C-alpha cells in the first residue's frame, strides 16, 4: 500500500504542474487582458493621466509586460518578479484588478462558505442516495422503486436554477424561510458568532437541496444498478442457500462491492458540485466563490480566475487520490483471476 501511495503522490505533483500550465494558457487565450480593457475604457471616457499611469504601474508591478512564460513562472513563484520570489508557492495568490485587492482578501469568507455549502451538499447526496439506492435495488419493480425512479428522473431532468426559483418561492410562502443569500442581512460583514452560524445553517437548506438534487438522483441510479448486478451473482445465491441471514447476505459483500463506483466518484463529485453550483449561486444570491469565478473569467481578472481554478484542480487531484486509496482498501479484497502480479 505504501508503494501505491508513493506512486500516486509522484504522479500528483507533475499533474498539478501541468494543470497550472493549462490554467495559465486558458486564461491568457482571449486577446488582451483586464488592464488593456480598462485602459481602452478610460481613453474612451477621456479619463485623467493619473488613472492611465496607475494602470501602467500595475502592468509593471504584476509583470504583465513580460513574455507569457515569464509571467507564468512569476505567478507560480518559480521566477523572481518585481518583488522577488512572490507567487503561489510563496502563498501569494496574486492581485484582483477588478476588486483592487489581494486575491486572498477577495476570496476570504467566500471560500469558507463555498466549502461549507459544497461539503454539506456532498453529505446530503450520500445520505439521501445510499438508503434509497439500496431500497430500490432490494425492492426492484415495487411501487417504492417506481416512485423513487420517477423522482430520480425528475431530479435529473429539472434544471437546478428552475428548481431554485420554485423552492425559493414556496419555502418562503409556506415555511417562512429567508430568500436568497447565505445569512441574514444583520450578520453581513460581522464577526462569526453562534447567531451567524445558525443563520447560515438556516439559509443553507434550499441551496443544499437544489445543488444536491441532480447529484442525488444520479447516485441513486448508479447504486441501484451496481447493487442489482451484485445481487444476481452466484455467491449471493449460495449465501442465501446456506442460510445466511438476509441482511448479512446483503451488507457483507453485495453492498460493499456496489460501493466501488460510488467511491470512485468522490474525486469528480467535489469539482462537479462546485462548478454546477455557479448558476444556482447566482440565482440564490449566494456569497460563494462560483459567481465570482464566472465574473473573473468574463472580465479577464487573471489572477483571481487562475488562483481559483488552481484551487479547483487541487481539490480534484486530492479527491481522486482519496477515492483511489479508499478503493484499494475497500473490502472484500478478493482477487478475480489467478497469478500474483504487482
Amino acid at each position, binding site marked *: 500500500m505504501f508503494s501505491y501511495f508513493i506512486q500516486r*503522490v509522484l504522479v500528483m505533483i507533475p499533474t498539478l504542474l501541468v494543470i497550472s500550465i493549462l490554467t495559465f494558457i486558458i486564461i491568457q487565450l482571449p486577446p488582451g487582458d483586464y488592464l488593456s480593457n480598462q485602459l481602452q475604457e478610460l481613453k474612451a471616457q477621456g479619463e485623467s493621466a493619473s488613472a492611465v499611469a496607475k494602470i501602467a504601474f500595475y502592468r509593471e508591478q504584476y509583470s504583465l509586460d513580460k513574455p507569457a512564460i515569464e509571467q507564468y513562472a512569476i505567478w507560480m513563484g518559480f521566477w523572481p518578479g518585481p518583488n522577488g520570489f512572490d507567487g503561489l*508557492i510563496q502563498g501569494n495568490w496574486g492581485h484582483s484588478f477588478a476588486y483592487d485587492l489581494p486575491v486572498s482578501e477577495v476570496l476570504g469568507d467566500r471560500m469558507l462558505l463555498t466549502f461549507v455549502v459544497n461539503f454539506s451538499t456532498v453529505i446530503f447526496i450520500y445520505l439521501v442516495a445510499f438508503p434509497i439506492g439500496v431500497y430500490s435495488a432490494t425492492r426492484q419493480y415495487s411501487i417504492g422503486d417506481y416512485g423513487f425512479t420517477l423522482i430520480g428522473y425528475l431530479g435529473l431532468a429539472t434544471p437546478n436554477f428552475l428548481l431554485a426559483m420554485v423552492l425559493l418561492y414556496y419555502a418562503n410562502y409556506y415555511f417562512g424561510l429567508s430568500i436568497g443569500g447565505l445569512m441574514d442581512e444583520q450578520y453581513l460583514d460581522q464577526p462569526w458568532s453562534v447567531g451567524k452560524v445558525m443563520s447560515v445553517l438556516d439559509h443553507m437548506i434550499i441551496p443544499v437541496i437544489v445543488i444536491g438534487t441532480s447529484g442525488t438522483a444520479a447516485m441513486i441510479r448508479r447504486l441501484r444498478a451496481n447493487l442489482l448486478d451484485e445481487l444476481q451473482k452466484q455467491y449471493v445465491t449460495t*449465501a442465501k442457500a446456506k442460510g445466511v441471514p438476509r441482511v448479512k447476505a446483503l451488507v457483507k459483500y453485495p453492498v460493499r462491492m456496489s460501493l466501488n463506483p460510488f467511491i470512485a466518484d468522490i474525486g469528480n463529485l467535489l469539482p462537479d458540485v462546485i462548478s454546477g453550483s455557479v448558476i444556482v449561486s447566482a440565482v440564490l444570491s449566494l456569497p460563494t466563490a462560483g459567481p465570482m469565478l464566472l465574473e473573473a473569467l468574463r472580465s479577464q481578472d487573471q489572477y483571481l480566475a487562475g488562483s481559483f481554478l488552481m484551487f479547483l484542480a487541487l481539490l480534484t487531484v486530492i479527491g481522486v487520490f482519496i477515492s483511489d486509496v479508499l478503493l484499494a482498501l475497500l473490502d472484500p479484497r478478493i482477487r478475480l483471476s489467478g497469478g500474483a502480479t504487482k
Partner: protein
Amino acid sequence: MREFTYPTREINRDLVRSGVGMLITALPLLLFGPSSVIVYILVGLFLMFAIYGVRAAVRKKTQISISSDGIQVTGVKGKFIDWEALEALKLSYYSTRRDGEKGWMQLKLKGRGTRLTLESTISEFDDLVRLCAIKAQEMGVKFDATTARNLRSIGIERQVTPQSIEAEKGL
C-alpha cells in the same frame, strides 16, 4: 529450504522513485522559499519519500527462508515464526481499478507475538504463499473466506476439514 528475495529490478525502481520524490520536494524548498504551509507539506512529502527509500534499501538486504521449522526473515531486522507457533495467515488483495484487476497481494503471518508482512513483489511469491498455506493447514490454522478465495485464485485449493467448514459458515 527455499529462499526468496525482493527482485533487484523492483528495488532499484523503488530507489529511483524515492530519489525523484526527494528531489522534486527538496528543490522548491531550497530554491523558492515557499510559504509556511507549503514548507510543511513539502517537508512531510520529503520525509515520506526518504522513508520509502530506506524501506527499499532494507528490502535489498532482506532474505526470506522457508524451512521445515518455520519462516525466517534475515537482513536489517531479523524475524522468525516457528510453524508450531503459527496462529494466523491472511492473504489480502488490493486493487484500485473498478474491475478489481492488476492489483497486488499481501501475505500476513502471525505467531507468538511476531508478525510478518510480505508483498507480492517478492520473486516467486505464489510458491512462498503455497508453502506457507500448506504449513498453516497442517497446523490447523483457519482461513477466513477472503483468504480462502485469494488462495484459490493462485491455484491453492484448501483441504476440506471440519475447521474449514466452520470457517466458511462465516462467509
